């Protein structure tokens, strides 16, 4: 059972990304208004904006938090072809007393010649590392060799993916059995260019990232990609937002000690959902990777959950404006009777008056009957 409420965001243009910090007490948003906002959760659970500043000279596509071990550090990337690293500074002004904090730019990464479409910090056990990808198809991996000095970043690797990159995800596994790995998705819509998801793995011997796998079955534009938190599992799970939601399982095949090449994987598709009936825009895993949230061009947020047999099912639907879903494809659903005030709330949202902090509460609709038995394609290998 999930309950939604609205937060007065006060961005002047579209919000492109939302990101939580490690503890879930802080949140960052970025927008086409070229700014980033930082939100802190107050004791009573309300989100308060404690910082808002202009970060780039173009739309800011993504914002992401570093592990708090490295301090309060954010990275952002933008249409202005740069990525930037920001650190919160306390003690230089009295802003904290007014409930505001001060963020300063530690570095600007200017290597890209096109829009930087995604930026992600590497898992903490790898140190302070950052990966960016850009529209011209280059993935760059930076490292801050001295974690105390965030203004020094060196470009460690440049991987050419040949296809315009839209999203990137680090494999979060901290197991020593799993070498550093990242997945890159391309939004190139030409299906004849082959697989749009590439997986790169770090090779200890060559000290380079090399391609370990291309998911050849994903040929449509990929908008988002996300490795599931590993949590000690023996395999990796990857969620992909393309024309549908797909969940892949990558089982590392036992390596013979003599081979030095990249790990081979047994790639299995665990689930594939076209319930959005449109392009899927984002996917996000919860902390145990037992719940997946996806958003699509149908304006809905959907939750997916696996039962103990690894059968994934829809666990909830909510409209993007926070109102409950009142039906798809013409037939009435249970939901329209559950929430009596649904009409009111959706009207509010349409007229743009839904700025109240707890303006409305609505429940995630139970999935429609025909949605409870998703199409699951279990491919043999």
């Amino acid at each position: 059972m999930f309950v939604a409420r609205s937060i007065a965001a006060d961005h002047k243009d579209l919000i492109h990304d939302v990101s939580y910090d490690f503890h879930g007490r802080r949140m960052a948003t970025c927008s086409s208004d070229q700014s980033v906002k930082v939100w802190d959760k107050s004791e009573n659970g309300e989100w308060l904006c404690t910082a808002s500043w202009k970060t780039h000279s173009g739309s800011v596509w993504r914002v992401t938090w570093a592990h708090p071990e490295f301090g309060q550090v954010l990275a952002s990337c933008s249409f202005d072809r740069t990525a930037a690293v920001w650190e919160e500074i306390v003690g230089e002004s009295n802003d904290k007393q007014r409930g505001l904090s001060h963020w300063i730019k530690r570095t600007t990464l200017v290597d890209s010649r096109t829009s930087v479409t995604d930026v992600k910090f590497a898992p903490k056990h790898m140190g302070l590392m950052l990966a960016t990808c850009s529209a011209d198809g280059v993935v760059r991996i930076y490292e801050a060799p001295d974690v105390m000095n965030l203004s020094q970043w060196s470009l460690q690797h440049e991987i050419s993916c040949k296809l315009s990159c839209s999203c990137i995800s680090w494999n979060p596994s901290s197991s020593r059995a799993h070498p550093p790995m990242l997945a890159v998705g391309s939004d190139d819509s030409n299906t004849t260019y082959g697989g749009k998801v590439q997986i790169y793995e770090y090779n200890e011997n060559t000290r380079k990232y090399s391609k370990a796998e291309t998911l050849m079955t994903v040929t449509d534009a990929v908008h988002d990609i996300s490795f599931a938190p590993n949590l000690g599992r023996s395999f990796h799970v990857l969620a992909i937002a393309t024309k549908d939601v797909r969940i892949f399982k990558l089982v590392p095949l036992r390596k013979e000690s003599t081979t030095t090449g990249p790990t081979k994987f047994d790639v299995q598709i665990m689930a594939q959902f076209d319930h959005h009936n449109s392009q899927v825009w984002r996917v996000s895993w919860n902390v145990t990777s037992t719940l997946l949230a996806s958003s699509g061009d149908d304006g809905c947020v959907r939750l997916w959950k696996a039962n103990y047999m690894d059968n994934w099912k829809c666990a909830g639907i909510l409209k993007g404006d926070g109102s409950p879903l009142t039906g798809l494809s013409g037939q009435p659903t249970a939901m329209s009777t559950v929430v009596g005030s649904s009409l009111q709330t959706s009207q509010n949202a349409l007229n743009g008056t839904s700025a109240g902090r707890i303006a409305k509460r609505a429940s995630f609709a139970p999935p429609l009957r025909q949605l409870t038995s998703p199409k699951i394609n279990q491919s043999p290998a």
Partner: protein
Amino acid sequence: MSGSKPDILWSPHHPDLYVICDSELGLYRIGPVGGTETKPGTLSLSKETAATLLAINSDTPYMKCVAWYPKHEPECLLAVGQANGRVVLTSLGQNHNSTCKELVGKEFVPKHARQCNTLAWNPVDSNLLAAGLDKHRADFSVLIWDISSKFAPETSVAAEKIRLSFVDLDSSSVVTKPLYELGQNDACLSLCWLLRDPKLLLAGMHRNLAIFDLRNTSQKMFVNTKAIQGVTVDPHFHDRVASFFEGQVAIWDLRKFEKPVLTLTEQPKPLIKVAWCPTRTGLLATLTRDSNIIRLYDMQHTPTPIGDETEPTIIERSVQPCESQIGSFAWHPSSQNRMVVVSASNRVMTDFTVFERVSLAWSSTTSLTWACGRHLYDCVEDSTGGTEGAAETDIATKMRERAQSRYGHDTVQVWRNHLLAGGTDPQLKSLWFDLFYMKQCAEDQELKLQGNKQSVVYSGIKNIIKTSSGTTESRRCWSGSDRQADVPRFYSEERCLALRLCGWISRGPDINVETFLRSLEHEREWERAAAIALFNLDIRRAIQILNKGAMAENGDLNLNVVAMALSGYTDEKSSLWREMCSSLRLQLKNPYLCVMFAFLTSEAGAYDGVLYESSVAVRDRVAFACMFLGDAQLPRYIDKLTNDMKEAGNLEGILLTGLTKDGVDLMESYVDRTADVQTASFCMLKGSPGEVLKDPRVQCWIENYRNLLDAWRFWHKRAEFDILRGKMDPSSKPLAQVFVSCNFCGKSISYSCSAIPHQGRGFSQYGVSGSPTKSKVTSCPGCRKPLPRCALCLMNMGTPVSGCSGTGKSDEKVDLTRENKLAQFKNWFTWCHNCRHGGHAGHMLSWFRDHTECPVSACTCKCMQLDTTGNLVPADSS
């Protein structure tokens, strides 16, 4: 819009009114479903909205184009362009006030009749109405009419006149002299007024786009292009204009008008409408002929006029508002991203909102936030509404709750941990009972065998059975019956241990299940108790238990029937009883009742009906196997069962594998399946210290679990977990992190500071050094120089704060080692890493309760705010 092709216009000022025009004009009011459903003639537009037809106007035939008067008053005034080039002002269904009356019915007639292609009201000077006409020889094709012409400047006066000369209305309402005539010897296909300057008119002419300036009509700025249809100005970016030709849209920047800044990918069919979204920057909707989708172009970056050759990023999207082919659409002027769509054929309308792309993120505490457009939504799991059952709860939430209830921390009554986990998961129950019995046996064995069997106990029944030797076989009587039973039973020391691990017996070597049966009766597990009694060849006891079960409160009376059936047992091979039991038992719902009859009807040594009944608890099946399977069969059965359990990741199998590598394999598939690293970590910590904990997979689970606790800010729980882990695995203990060294001699000052854990011994060491002044805790134990002073009380550090410490030698020793260790946190040495000022912890804390800056004069360091994580409150502090 010509002929039957419909078009839609929203009222510029009424958010709920729009007009559909095809062969006639229809005015509709849109409203919520509930409000209008009683009225007849309501058309449903979406789940929430419906439209009512307010008025129809069919006065103006041969409509080619329509434009809505842009000002508030008079409302519902429309200009209609006709096939003969006439422009007629008309109105819809409103009570006509004077201003409206004089305008309605006015006609503006061009010199030569030809089709009127487009109309555009000037947004500022609303008297100006531009009409674009087809070509007629050398005539002008853009005519700008002044709708107030032929009237005196003050309209109120004009109204008087009109009323007086009502008879003359017909002739006076025809205007033939336009205010401006533009575009000679050309055709005009589309028009729009520029928003940056209302004197400028952009026209899509025959083969060029032209900008006319009303201040100087002799000149025009133009650019040759084919894309001359549907010119429209971006309401958010007044220099940006879109136009189209066939399937291609061109975007123009009026500041560098020479060529389009952008052409969008060509669509296969000719376009019929292109419109900028009025509520959102850079969103262009396009519609092609014979299509049921609207293609949206989201231009993410405003183009810059000079120098920068960056192309705007365009995100292309398609939306499908309805099933049928779309005739036309119109953006709502104020509702965000909302449009009404009308179908091409039968005037079916759909109210539709284009959703912004939603980005989302989960927090570590399972709350979901997403951003839609400019709005943010926060969504939390509502645990109070969890009536659907605990099975629905996500494992993340479960683990959080279990951590709160100290799950895994009961190291004495180990089985109780399953209650701490909620007591609903049968696998966890089985697991913790397994571990409990293992612990019991291990302790018991320890007494007898001084620990050398301890590892055997934790190595699981699979390994215990393997070491089995000296199995004796016996044929026992059915107790309470004098018949010789043909049931061989096996006995050995190891099998006895296995039975203990299964929980059937509590002490060896006698196999006496009576205590176990009693406890099962107590828990009202009648069927299970009866089955176990039967397996111990006590048919009378089994019947007795079933009777008891039937008699008990809310008991199942059918148990009596089962008891009756049992009492008829005969070992006659061909008896009717045997025949009926073996067929009817499969219909019994309770697996234990089922296996009872399976046991009674099977041949000795062929107990598949019992052994492979998967609904029976593994411990009962294993115990059964240990009693009735011979040395050849038993290991085979156990191996098979173990592999099944490992594959399924079933925690009941821990009984078989124990906490060995096999057990880790099993736990691995359990973690793969459930992500429950919490159970995995605690379970592995219960094992005997050693190899299991060193398994990298176990280490990985433990690290992941600790990481989860950290992310949830369950720091106290993490610390408790670390303490527990340190007991089991001393190698995991971290080294001391900080030493404070003396300014003068550089040695550690450990004994005088109560912060260091081993100060008890350190103290006595220094104490015996024989100095009478050793009670001075304010000095360095190495060189006896005084320690730094507290920034607040200006006493040397180490000074007891509130005079609570005694002066005597013995007193002090007690102080430092016992109560003070816990109580005197305020005596602790603290300092800021940034400015390196510090003092007694208690003093510093109370200072920073009211201040932000460091207490040392002229130091502006905001010591307490430097660490954001440090200011977070642990979520599990009680």
